[in-house]
């Protein structure tokens, strides 16, 4: 199946995530996701990119990368950061289970990964070769596969 590839590299600064969000929103709109799905995709990506900036970047110039693949079946987005000290190996199944177990609706932080889990059709967190994290988010274009 033919896949179209898009790549977007921005500095590790939440300032630029506004522009990333409208890009993802318009892309999802042209791919004919529903209004509700577009909001979900934008929020999931906002959380992934905010994490890449806050937890996965040494400084602004570290940069984060989005690799976007579009085919007839899905929109797949891989967000990669370069990591920073003390943040290695955070995405092992044990660590992730611990993060999830500790989440409380009444706490100020710690809701990002939970939302990513709720809002994507599928997702994956993997340590990458440069010491950072690759977060893959998949959204199926078939409305029937939509989650809650």
């Amino acid at each position: 199946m033919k896949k179209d590839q898009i790549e977007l590299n921005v500095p590790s600064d939440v300032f630029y995530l506004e522009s990333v969000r409208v890009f993802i929103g318009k892309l999802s709109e042209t791919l004919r996701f529903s209004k509700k799905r577009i909001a979900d995709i934008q929020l999931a990506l906002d959380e992934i990119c905010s994490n890449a900036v806050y937890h996965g970047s040494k400084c602004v110039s570290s940069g984060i990368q989005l690799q976007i693949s579009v085919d007839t079946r899905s929109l797949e987005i891989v967000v990669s950061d370069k990591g920073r000290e003390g943040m290695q190996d955070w995405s092992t199944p044990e660590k992730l289970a611990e993060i999830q177990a500790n989440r409380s609706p009444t706490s100020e932080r710690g809701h990002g990964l939970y939302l990513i889990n709720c809002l994507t059709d599928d997702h994956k967190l993997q340590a990458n070769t440069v010491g950072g994290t690759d977060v893959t988010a998949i959204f199926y274009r078939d409305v029937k596969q939509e989650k809650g």
Partner: protein
Amino acid sequence: MTGTEFMDIRENADIKIIDVKTDLSSYAASDLRQVLEDLLTEKVNKVVVNFKDVDHINSTAVGTLVGIAKRLRQNDGDLKLCNLASTLTRTFNLIGASSVVEIYESENSAIAAF
């Protein structure tokens, strides 16, 4: 305290009303935190945040509101939200924050609830 680029501040008796004029992702969330912290410093304890012009909120901004709501309650005040688009209510519901921060349909009902 008269507001910022992204927020206007009005008042109704002893209640401060913040009109948010931007989407609330991580960039603007720090602005929102600053505005709310400043109101706490000024000993304001009743705050309504008006979301009429907001289309997007992320967990950082929701968390900020949850934190401020708790602190206002410690001062016998509260934080109430109004005019949320359905996608925003959904985000509060998913996180579970709607059990902590009160959400109202309109500004009037938010004010009346104090």
